[in-house]
């Protein structure tokens, strides 16, 4: 008999228009010392399974069929009071966001002591001692001191350790972790996963990890269950499922995972997802609106028309490739880099004070110099707080650098004083943001969202022309012209990101900044959006600054990569060279933390031959 045994679970959310079945016929088992991964994309019902096991379904959700057994005893039909006693004591739970999982108004000690006293019935003194001991076990330095602090005084990774300590308080038999590392940086993620695995083996605890991340699954789980639309499609040993999946959904899910070890020409088309509509891949750029007016006055944009009609799949133009070896080497005269940053410095005041000496500053970017050539995709990678986004924001003028120069196609932007002088450059630079939910105005129709930059920069004449262009742009990003009359909330995350891309393209930009464009998306959607960006980049010969914390994504997308740490640029190399033979210690450190995913099935992939 398994430690935790879920049989034929069915969860329904009744509503006025009939009942929504969130989970149906799911059977799982967790053994002591065993890590079971539950993987699936958003809406697959994986979190609902976890919540149903511990009896914390969000109302009006209810379990309408199936049984849950813990160590041979049925627990799903217990009284609410009895069920509560199991929570924390027998089944511990860890949630996704460590920043919001702790009560901000209580010290760590108060929260630990309350839980320990409740479950173990110890006195306060003993509870305190155990609390400190637990913090030490989860690897928090100086636990005697830190235990008196409040959650806001801990970093994200440390808070997740506290959350784990709280879940371990009563030495539960089973731990359910719902996306335990999604909100954390790679280096922290690796530490937390190691810690969880070690605790699981050491204390012989059964663990169920719910995640959308194949890297986490490959790293830590023994067995894996794949969920799709509320059903279990496949269940078995991790090595087998990742290496040789049986079900078509698992196969397509795995094929969409960005590979850390090889570069793909493009992601295979995933047939199993909602908006699996391919974009028109061939159109004549010279005659298309997007391809016009691409001569930016300095002759550099002329290459756009030339290499265009060929479409993706063709090798990149020589201009970009040639530039990668040395800075500007092999280029025609007067063809400097498109973006050139020199000695860029950004300082934020984190604690203002009337007296200068009492102020506390954060130097987000320190003395950064870097060139991005016409037509190349430049990747910027680093952990959160390394200053990647600050660089992007300085380039497009959202932050004013404290020192240094930003040159765009030879013009120094930092010396332009008047707003109006900046407008032509703003038109040439566009940005795509991370969160597709908050980067679109919810009160505007998609038509107006996409048309706004066209109207602002007066890129088209009459109303009909603008609407025609918008419809066409929406076609190009794979949404269809019909999307124009709808509002952003009617679209899924991936579709909204496509709207953002259409909006960015609307000014016919030359330089596109993508700040973590896919980190809020599911893998299959991510694959499509990345494909779309790749296609557009090649068709329009866009220059791109691609920011991500996700190394595999960087490998798929970028020609050259810059690695940032603590506001400084450590290393700038060609992508393949960087991944194959990193030079800087920090780069090596980051690469070592990257999930290897070596056993992943390579069925149906188009792998790019090393040039």
């Amino acid at each position, binding site marked *: 008999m398994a430690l935790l045994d879920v049989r034929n679970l069915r969860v329904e959310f009744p509503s006025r228009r009939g009942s929504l079945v969130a989970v149906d016929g799911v059977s799982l088992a967790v053994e002591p010392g065993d890590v079971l991964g539950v993987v699936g994309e958003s809406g697959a019902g994986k979190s609902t399974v976890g919540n149903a096991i511990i009896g*914390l379904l969000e109302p009006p959700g209810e379990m309408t069929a199936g049984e849950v057994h813990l160590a041979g005893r049925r627990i799903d039909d217990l009284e609410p009071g009895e069920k*509560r006693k199991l929570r924390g004591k027998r089944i511990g739970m860890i949630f996704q966001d460590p920043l919001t*999982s702790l009560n901000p108004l209580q010290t760590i000690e108060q929260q630990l002591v309350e839980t320990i006293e409740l479950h173990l019935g110890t006195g306060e003194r003993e509870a305190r001692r155990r609390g400190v001991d637990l913090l030490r076990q989860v690897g928090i330095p100086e636990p005697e001191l830190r235990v008196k602090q409040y959650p806001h005084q801990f970093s994200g990774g440390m808070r997740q350790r506290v959350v784990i300590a709280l*879940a371990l308080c009563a030495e539960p038999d089973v731990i359910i972790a719902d996306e335990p590392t999604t909100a954390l940086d790679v280096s922290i993620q690796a530490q937390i996963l190691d810690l969880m695995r070690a605790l699981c083996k050491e204390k012989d605890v059964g663990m169920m990890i719910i995640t959308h991340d194949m890297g986490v699954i490959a790293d830590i789980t023994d067995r894996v269950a794949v969920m799709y639309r509320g059903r279990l499609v496949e269940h078995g040993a991790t090595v087998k499922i990742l290496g040789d999946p049986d079900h078509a959904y698992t196969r397509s899910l795995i094929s969409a995972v960005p590979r850390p070890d090889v570069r793909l020409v493009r992601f295979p088309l995933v047939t199993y997802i909602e908006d699996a509509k391919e974009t028109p891949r061939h159109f004549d750029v010279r005659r298309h609106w997007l391809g016009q007016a691409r001569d930016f006055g300095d002759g550099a944009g002329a290459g756009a028309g030339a290499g265009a009609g060929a479409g993706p799949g063709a090798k990149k133009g020589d201009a970009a490739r040639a530039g990668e070896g040395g800075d500007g080497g092999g280029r025609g005269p007067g063809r400097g880099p498109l973006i050139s940053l020199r000695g860029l410095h950004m300082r934020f005041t984190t604690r203002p004070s009337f007296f200068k000496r009492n102020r506390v500053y954060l130097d987000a970017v320190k003395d950064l110099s870097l060139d991005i050539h016409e037509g190349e995709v430049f990747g910027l990678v680093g952990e959160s707080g390394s200053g990647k986004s600050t660089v992007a924001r300085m380039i497009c003028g959202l932050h004013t650098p404290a020192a240094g120069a930003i040159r765009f196609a030879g013009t120094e932007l930092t010396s332009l004083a008047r707003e109006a002088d900046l407008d032509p450059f703003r038109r040439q630079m566009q940005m795509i943001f991370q969160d597709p939910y908050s980067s679109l105005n919810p009160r505007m129709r998609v038509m107006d969202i996409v048309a706004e930059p066209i109207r602002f920069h007066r890129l088209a004449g009459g109303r009909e022309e603008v609407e025609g262009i918008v419809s066409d742009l929406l076609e190009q990003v794979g949404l269809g012209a019909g999307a124009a009359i709808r509002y952003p909330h009617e679209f899924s995350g991936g579709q909204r990101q496509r709207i953002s891309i259409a909006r960015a393209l609307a000014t016919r930009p030359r330089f596109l900044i993508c700040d973590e464009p896919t980190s809020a998306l599911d893998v299959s959607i991510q694959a499509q959006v990345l494909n779309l960006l790749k296609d557009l980049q090649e068709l329009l010969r866009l220059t791109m600054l691609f920011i991500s914390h996700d190394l595999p994504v960087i490998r798929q997308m970028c020609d050259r990569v810059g690695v940032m740490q603590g506001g400084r640029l450590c290393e700038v190399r060609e992508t393949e060279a960087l991944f194959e033979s990193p030079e800087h210690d920090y780069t090596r450190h980051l690469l070592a933390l990257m999930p290897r995913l070596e056993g992943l099935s390579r069925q149906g992939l188009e792998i790019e031959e090393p040039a």
Partner: protein
Amino acid sequence: MPAFLLRRLLQSVVVMLTVALIAFALFRYVGDPINNMVGQDTTLEEREELRERLGLNDPFLLQFARFVREASAGEFGLSYQHRRPVRELVAERLPATLELSFVSAVLALLVGAPMGVYTALRRRGILSRGFMTFSLIGVSLPTFLIGILLILFFGVILRWLPTFGRGEVVAIGWWTTGFLTASGLKSLIMPAITLALFQMTLIMRLIRAEMLEVLRTDFIKFAHARGLPARSVHFRHALKNTMVPVITITGLQLGSIIAFAIITESVFQWPGMGLLFIQAIGEVDIPVMAAYLVLIAFFFVFINFIVDLLYFVVDPRLRADKATANGQ
């Protein structure tokens, strides 16, 4: 934290000076003060002499400085109507208003807060729906109407409670209190309820909304997942987090209870400052109006200062910005 408090204190001083300027402008430029002081038959020379003697010909800044100095000592001159120092009039009336406001505020908090918590926890209960309906009445009916209805039922029809005045009061030094006599307490009931009703419903709705918000957060879910009993989750974890925004609004509302007392005091002929102020307006008694203005502003500023202090007590995130430096 000391820097924060110092900044707040400075802001308070600026606010008070601004109000004082308005009060002074009222005093000096609305009508001619000399005209208000002297009779019809005073000659022009006498008027000019009085003007010179009272310093009304001095430069503006000098006059304002004098006004601020005297106002901070509580000196606002003679009331035109009563021919007595404003200071005395206010001191006489202040206890009545403060006692009424205090009782109303306590009533609003003690009844409103538990109702708010209850309606948040039992969202669909019959009692909750009852409270919500009741609160709608409290918010939508004007204060004077509630006062008049109360007088009609409990004063005129049932004859249980007195309909006007403070009843018998006991003097303790310069302070007069109605708390110590039966008639004083009885007289307090209806005005206090009238004044409290609006604040009560506001506090209730505010706490309900905040509490519902907090109950949806992850740390509440995590507290449930650790098996903490519902009582502990609701009161130890949720309620305290609800309090942060509630304190702000409640603080502001306490100020407005004192200011709103005007209407209630008129309805119940309550001998407080509000009534004094209303009468002063009728008689264009500018020194009294100026004093009232400054005093109410002072209450508001003072209460807000206390609210800022309370933030530090409730929310540790404001307290420790130095300690976070080693927070890695």
